[in-house]
Every structure is written in structure tokens, then in C-alpha cells.
């Protein structure tokens, strides 16, 4: 028999790179572990969520469940799309492995959801701590004006102010913005010594960093601190040498030095993937596939979501990003977050890890 | 360019698949003046437009001088000396009067514009105005002048007197007669002012439902009002 897994991701459209990464990660896992689990064939079926479009995503998920009879759902790049799928899970007894959507509350929408990606709180709290440690007194926060951005702003503000710092400017930038000159000017006038920013990876992030450099903020000594989304590895060549030294906190760097990561990247290359295009979503997908295999194994190929979720609820393993575990209370991944710095190594720009924050939970949901 | 003869052989054409003119043959000698008469909707305009190559041709052929132009592109026909003044005038609305005239120059120097202004002094006064601001009659003058500036050897006129004041009609007819007399141009005139058309032409065809229903000398019609009435008049249709 064949157990089908429906993967919903951004396969076309402006975010196609990340959908492609879902596939690269899953392919890498399958290449290493085979297409059979305990005698059952596993087949991944890809569908395009394209953009934040909950109605469409729900129709796709429903079709996967009803028509293709998938036993598991996976993927979900955007939060609203994940939210739209959630109500289907219980009736259809289908677990969902979220491989990107980063709003904390998603896992609360259904007991059948586990997440292998990250949340904004998870990555931002270490950023705020770092800022304090590096002597930042006055910070300007600039985030994209949508769910994750607002999460990032709240997380930074809360942590940084608790440590005695002052937030002198908090700017919410619309997603469509590409010209950041006026924003830089405003930050400059605010007298901030450090900028904290989160923008979803893509054209805006590049524009932001360039505006930071070209408007003379770097020259004037204003530091830039961000979550890793702003300096994803495929963007680094575009930012170029002026970006060297930018700090970020993130759960995965393509340059992470570990045997697991090396073999993961080698596997991607072997499968025809381009290592320069690898982003965090491929790792989330790789680990997501691990969870799915585990669930299939635990249920012996039967549709039994309770048993399946129970089997992965407290899993612990070493991922290409480092040691991770699933938090049984939240079904969200607990992982190391790294402080990285853009550096040039062997003529190539990378995010060099310079400090590790061990086993970070989702700070929004966690009771710690 | 000296006047050229025009030969049309068994020409059929229309708009898309709809056939409007059906097997028309005409022969106009160089320097001749042919008047085309007929009631509304009989295909006069369609005939002229087909000569310019702007409809779907279903059959037959067209010759200018000794050249077969049946398959020639519209702009090239203009290059061969065919000049057309449409019934709807087709003024370039967003060009000024002067710019409109310049489109008709066909490579002649801009000083030639004075010819047009002499022909219609009214246009000189309005030279800086946009085409769409002109009165109906002014547009008619402009359309005529624009085509004449290109010194056509065959001139196709579709109701050129429509909307012109009687004095201007007089002047225009005088001018057209002078042009034709000079032997520089062959004229095909579609006109509803039958008396003026008959006085001007040296041969006449009457069209009915896309065919030539009568042809002959203008005198035959001038003399016989009843015949005119039957052919183009208020008869039953």
C-alpha cells in the first residue's frame, strides 16, 4: 500500500524559492531513508499555495484529503493558509506538520498540528539579549507590518526594555515597501544607536540592507541587528561586501558546522539541488519528513492521529541546524538559536555563527 | 505626378465575410472625372474604401496606370498617387491643423503648406487648434487640403461638399474643375448634391445594392429628371 502525504507550499509566485526548499528538504530525507517505512510506500504530493490565500489553501487541503486520500498534510508557508487548514484536521483525522508558518498560535488551533520551523518570539528574544550585551542603549525597531513582524516587535521590545534599554522608535513598514530611504532617514533622526529589524525574506530585505548602507548609517556607526530572515544566504551575494559584519539571530545557518549539516547539504547537492538556494525551509521540511516517517512507523501505516502525534510529541534528535526536540506541551520545536555575523570566508559571504543560545522554546507560548 | 487612369475589373468586397459591393467594373481615363451616385447604403463609400485597400476583397482586380495594385498595401497605394478624402473626414483629432496638414505632405517641404492655406484661408486662422476643436465644415476643408497637398494623381472624394457653406462649395468646385482641367489628376467623386456632381463630371455611374445599375454621360441625367428620380431619387426602396 501507499501512504500519501500532501505538501502544501509556495511552489510558484514570489515565494517560490521557499516552496522549492520544501521539496529539496523532503527529497533529501527520502534519498537518505528510502521511500518505504515499515513496508509501506510513502508518496509526497505537492500542491501550490502560491500566496496568502486561505480559501484556496483550504480547497487544496480538502481535495488532498478527500480525493487523494492523503494520511498526512505538511508544509504551509503562510500563517493564514495554515489557519484555514486547521479546522479540517480533526474531522478527517489528519495530522499536519507545519514547515514554516511562524505565528505562535497556529499550534493551538488543532491538537493534530506539530511545527518544525520556528516562531518569531523564539528568534527575537536572543536578538534583544545580544543587543543589550553589545551595549545598545537606544534601539529603533523596524518590522514588516503583519503578524510575524508585530510578534517580532513585541518580543524585542519586551525583552530589551526588561533589560533596561529604551526603544526610541518603532516603525511598522508595509509589506510592499521597497524604498527604505525615508525610513533610514527617520531612524537616523531618532538618535538610535542600534536598529532591530525583521522583514520576510525577499526583495524588501535586500532593499532594507542597501538603504542602511547607502544612506550612511553604517558609516555613522549605527548597528544593524536582525533575525536571520533579513540575511538569508541566497540574498548575501546581492548585498555584497558592504554587508560584512551585520548581526542576526536565527535557528539555522547554511554554514552551520556539524556532520549532520554537511551530509544534509551533500544530499541536496546529490539530488540536483543548488546549495546556494538553500534556506531555513528546507531544514524544516527535512525534519518534518523525519516526523512523518516516525508517525507512519508508530501507527503501522494506519490512520490514527492520536497515536501519531503521541509518537512525535517528545522526540529529540540532532537536526542539520543542531540539537532539537519537540516540546510536548506546545508541539512546537525547541531548538538552539545562534547569533551570527555576515563574514567572507573563501570568497563567499556566509552567516558565521559566533554564539549559541541553547534550546530556545517558543517564548510566546511557553510557560518558562 | 501626372494624372493616371484607373481600371476596376469585376471587383467584389465587403466587411469581413459580408459582401457589400459585387462585381463592379469601371474604367476611368487619365484626367477624367467620374461621378458615383446612389442612395444611402448602396455601397459608394465601400467602393472607395476598397480602392484604398481598407476592406476585405472577395474578388476582382484594380489597376492604376499600368500597375496591378490589387495586392498592394494601402500606404503603398497612396505612394502610387491614390489620394482619398473620406466621408467621415477622419481628422487626426489630437494633432493641430498644421500637423494634420503635414501628414499629407508626402515628403514635400513645409513651405508647401501655404498652398493649403491659400485654398482655405479659414484653416490658416485655425492652424494651431487641435483637429477635434474644428467645426464640421472646417474639418471637411482640412481633410480635403490634407489630401491635395500630397499631389495625388487619382483623387477619391467621398461627399466632399457635405457640411460646407454654399460659397465654399462654389469655390471648391471651381478648384476641382481647375485641377481636373490641368490634367494633373483623375477624379472619382461621390456626391449627394446631384446637380453639382452632374455639372462637374464627364461620366456617371449609379450604384444600387453594390452593383452599377446605370452608367452613361451626365447630360442624359440632366435632361431627364424622371430618370434621376428613378435611379437615385425618392423612389420606393
Amino acid at each position, binding site marked *: 500500500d501507499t501512504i500519501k502525504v500532501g505538501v502544501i507550499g509556495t511552489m510558484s509566485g514570489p515565494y517560490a524559492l521557499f516552496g522549492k526548499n520544501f521539496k529539496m528538504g523532503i527529497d533529501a530525507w527520502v534519498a537518505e531513508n528510502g521511500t518505504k517505512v515499515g513496508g509501506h510506500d510513502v508518496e509526497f504530493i505537492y500542491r501550490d499555495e502560491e500566496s496568502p490565500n486561505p480559501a484556496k489553501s483550504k480547497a487544496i487541503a480538502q481535495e488532498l484529503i478527500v480525493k487523494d486520500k492523503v494520511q498526512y498534510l505538511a508544509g504551509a508557508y503562510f500563517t493564514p493558509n495554515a489557519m484555514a487548514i486547521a479546522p479540517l484536521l480533526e474531522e478527517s483525522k489528519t495530522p499536519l506538520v507545519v514547515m514554516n508558518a511562524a505565528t505562535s498560535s497556529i499550534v493551538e488551533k488543532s491538537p493534530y498540528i506539530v511545527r518544525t520551523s520556528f516562531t518569531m518570539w523564539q528568534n527575537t528574544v536572543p536578538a534583544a539579549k545580544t543587543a543589550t550585551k553589545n551595549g545598545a542603549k537606544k534601539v529603533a525597531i523596524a518590522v514588516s507590518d503583519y503578524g510575524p513582524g508585530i510578534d517580532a516587535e513585541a518580543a524585542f521590545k519586551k525583552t530589551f526594555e526588561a533589560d533596561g534599554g529604551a526603544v526610541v522608535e518603532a516603525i*511598522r513598514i508595509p509589506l510592499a*515597501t521597497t*524604498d527604505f530611504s525615508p525610513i533610514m532617514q527617520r531612524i537616523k533622526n531618532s538618535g538610535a544607536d542600534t536598529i532591530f529589524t525583521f522583514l520576510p525574506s525577499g526583495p524588501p530585505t*535586500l*532593499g532594507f540592507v542597501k538603504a542602511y548602507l547607502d*544612506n550612511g548609517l553604517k558609516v555613522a556607526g549605527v548597528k544593524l541587528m536582525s533575525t536571520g530572515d533579513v540575511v538569508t544566504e541566497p540574498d548575501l551575494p546581492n548585498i555584497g561586501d558592504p554587508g560584512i559584519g551585520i548581526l542576526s539571530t536565527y535557528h539555522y545557518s547554511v554554514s552551520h558546522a556539524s556532520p549532520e549539516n554537511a551530509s544534509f547539504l551533500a544530499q541536496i547537492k546529490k539530488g540536483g539541488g543548488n546549495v546556494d538556494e538553500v534556506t531555513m525551509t528546507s531544514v524544516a521540511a527535512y525534519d518534518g519528513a523525519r516526523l512523518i516517517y516516525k508517525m507512519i512507523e508508530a501507527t503501522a501505516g494506519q490512520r490514527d492521529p492520536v497515536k501519531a502525534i503521541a509518537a512525535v510529541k517528545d522526540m529529540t534528535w540532532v537536526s542539520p541546524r543542531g540539537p532539537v526536540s519537540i516540546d510536548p506541551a506546545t508541539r512546537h520545536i525547541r531548538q538552539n538559536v545562534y547569533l551570527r555575523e555576515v563574514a567572507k570566508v573563501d570568497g563567499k559571504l556566509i552567516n558565521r555563527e559566533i554564539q549559541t543560545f541553547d534550546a530556545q522554546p517558543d517564548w510566546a507560548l511557553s510557560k518558562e | 505626378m501626372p494624372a493616371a487612369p484607373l481600371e476596376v475589373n469585376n471587383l467584389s468586397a465587403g466587411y469581413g465575410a459580408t459582401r457589400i459591393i459585387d462585381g463592379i467594373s469601371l474604367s476611368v481615363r487619365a484626367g477624367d472625372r467620374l461621378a458615383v451616385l446612389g442612395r444611402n447604403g448602396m455601397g459608394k463609400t465601400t467602393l472607395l474604401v476598397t480602392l484604398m485597400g481598407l476592406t476585405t476583397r472577395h474578388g476582382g482586380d484594380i489597376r492604376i496606370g499600368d500597375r496591378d495594385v490589387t495586392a498592394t498595401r494601402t500606404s503603398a497605394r497612396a505612394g502610387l498617387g491614390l489620394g482619398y478624402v473620406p466621408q467621415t473626414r477622419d481628422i*487626426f483629432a*489630437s494633432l493641430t491643423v498644421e500637423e494634420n496638414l503635414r501628414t499629407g505632405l508626402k515628403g514635400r517641404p513645409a513651405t508647401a503648406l501655404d498652398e493649403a492655406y491659400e485654398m482655405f484661408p479659414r484653416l490658416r486662422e485655425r492652424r494651431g487648434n487641435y483637429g477635434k476643436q474644428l467645426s464640421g465644415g472646417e474639418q471637411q476643408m482640412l481633410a480635403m487640403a490634407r489630401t491635395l497637398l500630397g499631389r495625388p494623381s487619382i483623387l477619391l472624394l467621398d461627399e466632399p461638399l457635405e457640411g460646407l457653406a454654399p460659397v465654399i462649395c462654389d469655390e471648391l468646385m471651381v478648384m476641382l474643375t481647375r485641377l481636373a482641367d490641368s490634367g494633373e489628376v483623375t477624379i472619382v467623386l461621390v456626391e449627394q448634391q446631384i446637380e453639382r456632381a452632374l455639372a462637374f463630371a464627364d461620366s456617371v455611374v449609379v450604384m444600387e445594392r453594390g452593383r452599377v445599375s446605370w452608367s452613361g454621360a451626365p447630360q442624359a441625367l440632366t435632361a431627364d429628371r424622371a430618370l434621376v428620380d428613378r435611379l437615385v431619387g425618392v423612389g420606393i426602396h
Partner: protein
Amino acid sequence: MRIVLSIATDALAYGMVLFIISIGLSIMMGLMRVVNLAHGAFAMIGGYLASYAIRDLNAPYGLAILIAVIGAIVVSIPFEALLYRRIYRKSDPLIQVLMTIGITFVIIGVVNYIFGPSLKSIPLPNALSGPLDIGFRMVPTHRVFVIACGLITALLLWLLIEKTEFGIKLRASVDHSDMADALGIRTEIIYAVTFALAIGLGAFGGVVGAEILPIEPFYALRYMVTFLVVVSVGGAGSITGALSASLLLGLADTTGKYLAPEFGEFFFYLTVIIIVFLFPRGLFGRSHA
């Protein structure tokens, strides 16, 4: 005062980028009456070619611009010959929208396939990169370059369209293509040349504007609305219109971003509405007959 100057500087630079990219579309919409929603797609092709020329062929910036402009025109030729010709004359604008959206999708698909889904930068020469001190603040050097390019483009185009025989023939062909033909104007050539001009301008804008509107496969759709709005507000086909609309909208956008960024496009579109109500024919529209 400093703030005002500062905003004005940013607005001018942003406005000029909008202008350079939109003017090709303005010509296409105003003079050829083709609502070419694929304009951004050709600008994007220009951007990709320039990026490829600089990063993979090590071409200097100036040469890369040339390659981009000529390359985009060459790519556009089959589109012109096979597709655009069908929608030039008298065609319903809705049909034009349909066709040009289709062309956009196809170009996006092909570009995505060839160059991959990630963003492509166009590295600047040293002389144009980094900040430039203009007294009261630092501005990106590149912006100064863009402003100069914008002004020169505007002037040359104005001369071409308003003052030359070509401009007259073009406008005549658009008003009444049959009549223009009947006067001996080779309208199909006029159209082809103008099309190439519009595409070339788009590609040029795509390259020099890439710092603000970065080149990626969805460029063509992402900025479609912005270009359309700039052209319509300015009045299609008018150089001065496009220029003033770009500057005004650039100002609205920059001011909004500076003073209340969280409102996003709100002020931009509010300004659009106000301008339309004040100038119902576009700022300097070529009103169509």
C-alpha cells in the same frame, strides 16, 4: 527644515525612478493606445540581462545597460510581430489587458525557469555606489545618477514626440490608422519602432531603477499597479504628465513613509484619489478623441 529638505531629496529620487520605468508604458498607452500590462515584464528582462552581463560576463555597468536595452528589444520582437500587432488598432482595452497579462505570465514562467526564483542584483560600479554627502545629509550616489538619467530621458523624449516628423506620424497613426495609411504613412513601421522605443525605455528603467525596485521574477506583477497608476495619473502619453505624476506620487509616498509608515500605501492612494478629483483628465493628459 532639514527634515523637509531630506524628504524632498528622497521624494525626488524615488519619483525619478518611477518616471524612468513608467515613461515607456506611458508612451505605449498614450500614443499607441495599448494597455501593456507586460511592460514590467520587459523591464524585468532588461534587469536580468544587465545582472547577467555584469555578474557572469564581467561587463562594465554602461555596457550592461546597453546589452539590457538591446537585448530586451530583441526579445520583444517576436512578441511584437506575433502578438502585439493584433491588438494595436481599435482593439478593446480589455482584450489588451487579457493578452498582456498572458504575456506577463509566460515571461515570468520562462524567467523563473532560466534564472531561478531568487532575486538578482545589478552590482553598481564604485563610482555610483555608497553614500554621497550633499551637505545637509548623505544620499546614495546612485540616486543622483538616476535623477540625471530621468531628466535627460524626459528632455529627449519630449523633443522626439513633439518636435519631429516621426512624432507627428506616430500620433496620426494612432488617431486614425486607416487614414494615416491612406496618406501613405507606413503605420506598421511606425508602430514597430515606437514599440521598440517603449520596450527599450522599460529595460533602461528596469536596470537603473533596480536599486529601489529590485529585480526578481515577480517584478512584472508586483509593480504592475504602481506603473499603471503613475501613467494614468499623469495622463497617458504625456511626458510632462508622467514626470509630474511620478514626482507628486513619489512625494506622497515618501512623506507618508516618513511620517506614518504603518499606513503603508494609504497615503499614496489617497493622493491618487485627490489628484484624480482635482485633475479628472490626468495632470497633462493627451485627451483622446
